[in-house]
């Protein structure tokens, strides 16, 4: 009784915790990750393991350096989540050193330099992705061809060799090629339907394999919505803006078309971005109206980059731009306080 701590009210709590939320997110990643593994093989798994280990190590050393509690903080799982999301975004052929650079940038520059969990204005995983893309464009644009397009996915041994940056028997070029979005950018004078015929890369609605990957993340996202871990505002606004713009510029699928809404929704990182990345509460806008604006802004920029920019996909850049705008959006969309005029 003597050493009872006297604290301000309230004295009870709902019982949720940050670690719990992050673990739910990790769980929700599983369907999408499984689809990635199915389509691209072991590289994905290797990346997840490597990134997670590095993230924990880096975060622990910085916390140690800053004399902050290490274990208690690692237990919030946010570093692992960052690592997993980054690993799910990068090509499965990334050599170990590029992964190291990327995760170091994400955890150290993107997160810990700002003070760690909760303080970072930019999405660490996307900061890491963007930095990697700029720094090592060759490795970052080297996507595997999905199962079904290529006769064989690299075996586990081959995947490990690729990861360790060793020479392969057949050469890595045998497995790699442009992603569907990249290929689509170069459809030149073809009609969309002609383009679809011309390459085995395209599947039902979108890139072969990528459809399933996006469906996986969509499924995980719906689980998060159901669990009320995330609110609908950002994903819905993001998807709506992207689909709307795509529809506007679809142009009947002729030579100047920028692709159908369906293609855009199930291509590249759309669903991962919509449910797992734009929703990062730390770096997103927080007011309800703000969230809608934020989601729509990112969706719009993603389309602009895909359609008119120099990059085949723009989730990372769009998210970073949205992050930058978030504080401003928040400042401009403060809700009306009870008892105050509008």
């Amino acid at each position, binding site marked *: *009784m003597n050493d009872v701590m006297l604290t301000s009210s309230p004295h009870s709590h709902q019982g*949720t915790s940050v670690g719990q939320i992050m673990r739910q997110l990790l769980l929700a990643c599983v369907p999408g990750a499984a689809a990635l593994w199915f389509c691209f093989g072991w590289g994905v798994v290797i990346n997840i393991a490597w990134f997670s280990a590095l993230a924990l190590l880096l975060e622990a050393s910085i916390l140690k350096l800053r004399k902050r509690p290490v274990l208690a903080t690692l237990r919030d799982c946010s570093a692992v989540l960052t690592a997993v999301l980054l690993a799910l975004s990068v090509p499965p052929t990334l050599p170990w050193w590029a992964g190291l650079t990327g995760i170091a940038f994400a955890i150290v520059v993107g997160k810990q330099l700002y003070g760690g969990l909760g303080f970072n204005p930019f999405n660490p995983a996307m900061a890491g992705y963007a930095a990697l893309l700029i720094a090592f464009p060759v490795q970052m644009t080297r996507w595997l061809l999905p199962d079904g397009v290529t006769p064989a996915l690299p075996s586990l041994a081959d995947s490990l060799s690729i990861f360790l940056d060793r020479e392969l028997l057949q050469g890595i070029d045998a497995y790699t090629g442009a992603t569907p979005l990249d290929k689509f950018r170069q459809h030149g004078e073809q009609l969309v339907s002609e383009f679809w015929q011309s390459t085995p890369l395209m599947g039902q609605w979108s890139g072969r394999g990528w459809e399933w990957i996006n469906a996986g993340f969509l499924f995980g996202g719906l689980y998060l919505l159901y669990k009320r871990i995330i609110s609908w505002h950002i994903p819905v606004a993001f998807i709506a803006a992207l689909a709307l713009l795509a529809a506007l510029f679809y142009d009947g699928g002729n030579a100047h078309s920028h692709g159908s809404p369906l293609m855009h929704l199930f291509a590249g990182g759309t669903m991962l971005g919509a449910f797992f990345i734009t929703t990062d*509460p730390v770096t997103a806008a927080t007011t309800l109206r703000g969230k809608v604006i934020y989601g729509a802004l990112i969706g719009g920029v993603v389309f602009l980059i895909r359609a008119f920019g120099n990059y085949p996909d723009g989730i990372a850049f769009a998210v970073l731009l949205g992050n930058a705008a978030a504080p401003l959006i928040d400042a401009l969309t403060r809700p009306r306080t*009870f008892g105050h005029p509008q």
Partner: protein
Amino acid sequence: MSASPRLWNFPGGIAPLAHKAESLRGPIRRTTLPPQLIVPLTQPGHVAPNVLVQTGERVRKGQILACGDDATGVTVHAPAAGVINAIGEQSVANMSALPELCVIIDTDAAETTWDKLPPLDYRTADADTLIARIADCGISGLGGAGFPTHAKLRAALRKIDIVIVNAAECEPWITADEALLRERAADVVAGSKILLQLTGALRCLIGIEDSKPQAVAALQAAVDDPRLKVVVFPARYPSGAEAQLIYTLTGKEMPSGTRPVHNGILCHNVGTVYAIARAVLHGEALLSRIVTITGGAVSDAANYEASIGTPISFLLQQSGFDERSLSQLVCGGSLMGIALPHAQLPVAKTTNCVIAATRSELPPPQPEQACIRCGDCADVCPVQLVPQQLYWFARSQQFDQARANHLNDCIECGACAWVCPSHIPLVQYYRAAKAELAEQDTKQQHAVHWRQRFEAHQHRMALEQAQAEQRRAERAALAAQKQEQAVKAGPSPQDIVAAALARVQAKKAAQAAAKPSSDDDNGASS
């Protein structure tokens, strides 16, 4: 029974586990008189009370122990007869855990006569009489804040349309109001009618959560006046907070910075209304109140009608207190209550509940983590603040920003901290920041006042200086005249010395004449 009235939905809110059944298993218990009572003399704003008794003095039950200085002061009565053992600073159930002035009475259980005032007929008495009676009976709000009821009523005299009786009791664990309503609804109804009479209001709404069907039934049975209406609304914390309750019942938002009485509404807690009824109809001062004793560390949770000043430990004992399983001792509900350092503290007029909680019920707070801006807090804030932003501003000590974001509208309900996955003690941040802002305001007021005073002072000094200057000039002219004469006469060194001496003499005389002015010292050199 008419069709259920329209209800309005206030924003946000939470639904924590109620924990109310435990203490509602039996009727309100009366306790034996504890051997010693510690009666707090606390006054609004912590100003010093006027103590009217002395150590060693014998007091009767209901005798006035102390009163306040001004119109907002609260009268404190002896809850029981006995001898004053001491008057001094004692720990009481407050947030600071700093001692306050109390009177300790060694009770005399044999002596039970009670100095009551004569009953009043509220239908004929005028408002001033009624308010004076309420003041004489030492009633202050029993709903939480403990604001002197007579002061609130005096401000309410202007124009009140609606009287609202707050029977929401939305906080977990507390059942004092519910118990009161189950057993003594008639007095509450009588008190409401007194308030209607006193204020001239046309309607009285008794707001109560739908989680208290027995109390609702008792109330409805007791209501015998068409002006009174019992309004039942869904349970959601903090439906009992004044502004939220008023909105639920009337749809009126109290403009920020105003109190309900400014908007034609008077809101009182049922306990207060009951006390008003007792004071007016029976002349009884507020000597006891109903206290819920509950929590896993007591085996026999119940409501007690306890004399003010009863040590909490005394009540706990009666309920089978097991100190070993205690984790936290909280006075009030789990969401707004005060954590108590120990149980040797007295029941005060605002003490509605004591929770002796086990570790699983109210675990010690988890370490604070960084805010992840999840926005859960904003979803539940009943005032539609953005709590996390207020937190960021408070944390970085940008208090002006916090003010601009309406920190002062926060009712400290704790809903935000209850949901926060990062376990941030948000309310403590707000309290600290609010205090800081209040301090700034006081400083600002002082500064304005002192600037005026200083300028007045400067002005006065300048005037005095000018007057002194003038006198000096006159003297100088005089001296010059003299000197001129002396020159004409052909001065000698002796003359000059003599003249100087004369000047000194003159100066001393002048100084004696011009009393307080200090400027004359300079005159010597001229």
